[in-house]
């Protein structure tokens, strides 16, 4: 019996080949891009909101921006 020939003549019932798509990396990249954009938007929003609060209440003694401003302008506060 010629096994090589017999093997080559076998008609194997292979499972059906699924349809493959190369979408995964694009989806991942898009998700990463969206996450970066959202993070950037949040950071910009927080910065704008912070500066507008300081601008709206310059006389408030308890506000953080007032304290920072006075600390920056206080004589002798600089460290050497």
């Amino acid at each position: 019996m010629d096994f090589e020939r017999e093997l080559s003549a076998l008609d194997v019932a292979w499972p059906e080949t699924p349809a493959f798509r190369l979408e995964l990396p694009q989806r991942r990249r898009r998700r990463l891009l969206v996450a970066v954009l959202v993070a950037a938007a949040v950071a910009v929003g927080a910065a704008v909101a912070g500066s507008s609060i300081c601008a709206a209440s310059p006389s408030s003694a308890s506000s953080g921006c007032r304290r920072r401003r006075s600390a920056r302008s206080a004589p002798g506060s600089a460290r050497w």
Partner: protein
Amino acid sequence: MRPHQEIAFRVAYLITRNAADAEDAVQDGLVKAWRAFGRFRPGAPMRPWLLHIVANEARNRRRSAARREALALRASPGEAAPSPEEAVVDADERARLLAALDGLPDAMRLVLAYRHLLALSEEETAAALGVRVGTVKSRSARALEKLREAHGLRA
């Protein structure tokens, strides 16, 4: 890569012996190949390169304890059998041969399946197995010997 998807799936199926695992292996292999495409040598044959990547993925996800599907024969209606009795004997003989192949150790089973069931060249078989062409030749000879023994035992 699309023309090679079917052969890649069958290579993975022979390793994992499970269609779902083979599908995952090919999907991940295609993504890896797509990412590594910049390192692909222009002018080199793509099929062995892709089969090597997919076979590696399939080996990584082979689950020894998972469901293991056996290879099955498909009825070939186009074949002209001399008589119904002989056709039955012939089908029986082929089923025994396939069962004997299925029972071989993985290294031997794969080399014969790649070479003869998938009609891969020695180079492609070597790439899919991650061995040298010389190893494919020697392993094929040993596997045929073993198949002869196993088939004899089943007769």
